[in-house]
């Protein structure tokens, strides 16, 4: 899945990487289970956290039941997709949010010593346990939002996977900026939150220049608006568009990361100017 062009991109390698991803995630969860109490507080805490966020919009829609034809139910679906795709990244590729940190502190050394793709290795070797809470929350909210059919469930699953992948690509791009400018950790984190920030609000209120931003720098249009539309009402063209964007952003992410890796300084001297 996270293969780089030029290497032996066969189906077998892909399967190997997938099964290794699963293996490492299992180890991470096992590792977190060593501290049962902390494990539980994190998962349950995250569920409460998510409920809190959706409550804001519950209150808003109490006062305004329909905003330009958008109802609380639509917001629920939005939250369902968003928490599930976010949790997929955090469960299977948490390391992507630490890439910047790994780069400045020379932590990539460890992954570079293995005969596997560095980007893949650095990303999958961490798991955010609390994301299990997000995942559960997202699934429950999806069913609570109503009108569940088999077709809708399948679209939901597919769309969650695709958008998770896009989120991953976006994070790789912004975190890789660290290779070129040095310290970009917090800025990258903020950009990620900015991208997620769009996903709380009714998608039909955005227009003008802000919409342009959603189509380019912070591609919330592809990660939030379109998937919501597709799950509401199936549309093959939209799905195709999302798929194309996903592949495009993936190739871009890999290109930038590989370029950046040449500038990697392995934490030898970078600390001098801290």
């Amino acid at each position, binding site marked *: 899945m996270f293969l780089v062009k030029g290497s032996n991109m066969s189906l077998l390698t892909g399967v190997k990487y997938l099964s290794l991803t699963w293996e490492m995630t299992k180890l991470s969860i096992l590792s977190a289970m060593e501290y049962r109490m*902390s494990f539980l507080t*994190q998962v*349950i805490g995250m569920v409460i*956290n998510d409920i809190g966020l959706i409550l804001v919009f519950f209150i*808003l829609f*109490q006062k305004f039941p329909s905003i330009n034809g958008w109802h609380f139910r639509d917001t629920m679906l939005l939250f369902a997709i968003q928490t599930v795709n976010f949790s997929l990244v955090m469960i299977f590729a948490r390391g992507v949010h630490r890439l910047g940190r790994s780069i400045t502190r020379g932590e990539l050394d460890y992954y570079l010593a293995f005969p596997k793709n560095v980007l893949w290795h650095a990303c999958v070797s961490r798991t955010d346990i609390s994301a299990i809470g997000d995942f559960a929350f997202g699934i429950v909210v999806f069913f609570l939002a109503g009108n569940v059919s088999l077709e809708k469930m399948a679209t939901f699953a597919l769309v969650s996977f695709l958008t998770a992948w896009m989120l991953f690509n976006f994070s790789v791009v912004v975190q890789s900026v660290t290779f070129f400018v040095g310290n970009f950790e*917090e800025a990258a984190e903020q950009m990620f939150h900015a991208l997620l920030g769009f996903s709380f609000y009714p998608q039909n209120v955005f227009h003008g220049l*802000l919409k342009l931003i959603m189509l380019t720098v912070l591609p919330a249009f592809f990660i939030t608006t379109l998937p919501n539309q597709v799950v509401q009402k199936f549309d093959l063209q939209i799905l195709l568009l999302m798929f194309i964007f996903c592949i495009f952003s993936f190739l871009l992410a890999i290109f930038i990361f590989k370029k950046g890796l040449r500038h990697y300084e392995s934490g030898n001297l970078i600390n001098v100017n801290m």
Partner: protein
Amino acid sequence: MSMVVTSPDFRWGLKFFKYLEIAKVNYFTNTTYLANFLSKSIMVVLRIWIFTQLYRVTYATANENEIGGLTVPMVIWGLMIAQSLNTATRPQLSKLIDEEVKSGVIAYSINRPYSYILFHYFGSMGRFVSNLISNLTLGFLAAFILVGPISLSWNGLLLGSLLLFFGYTLDFLIDLMIGLISFWVEDISAFNWIYSKSQLIFGGLILPLSLFPDYLRNIAELLPFSQLFYSGSRLIVNFDFQLFQKYLLIQMAWLVFFWLLVGYVFSKGIKHVSVNGG
């Protein structure tokens, strides 16, 4: 032999400069990484941009010009102020204290020749002010461009800012309180989440309380979360003396409550540290 020199109580001037210096050091450290620093302010701008589009449409759908005493521009300016202050308090103090406790540094830092609590109060203040200057500058420009100017009153500015200052102090106390929990609890992140989500719901950071259904607003106004950065910003954009009295009263009650609580918990916690040998 103890190396700690306790300065006599009458040397207030020196004490003040000591804490001022702590604030200054934090102020400058925080501005070192410009990209990191500015990205927070840009987030504020982006959020109020989204809010502008959201509330314009919301008001239009409801076919109203003024809801709960506020027009769209007032809502946006108020959200801008609340967001600027809230964002400026990050990273949370509780996380720093948690790290101190986990690494054992706390055993040393409570034995320095300064008050541990005041040290953190002024340290946070230094970081807060540096963030705030850039948040408010960019936020002000953005709000001006997005919704245009609103008329402000001197009363609103003065008394609203006073509430914001108390609000900052209240946030400090609650944040410190959560940090101190790490004396007893391994992982305080759950407390942090609950606090920040309560702020999000009842603190008017996304949805101003003036847009709440009445029964909910009455409850929310009594909670400490609305008394952090909502009450002050609400009064700045549209001053109301009765509301000011009410908010001030609620705020003072919570300030005293958390002040006493922090004092109690801190004295308990210190004993805990010395029992565990740091």
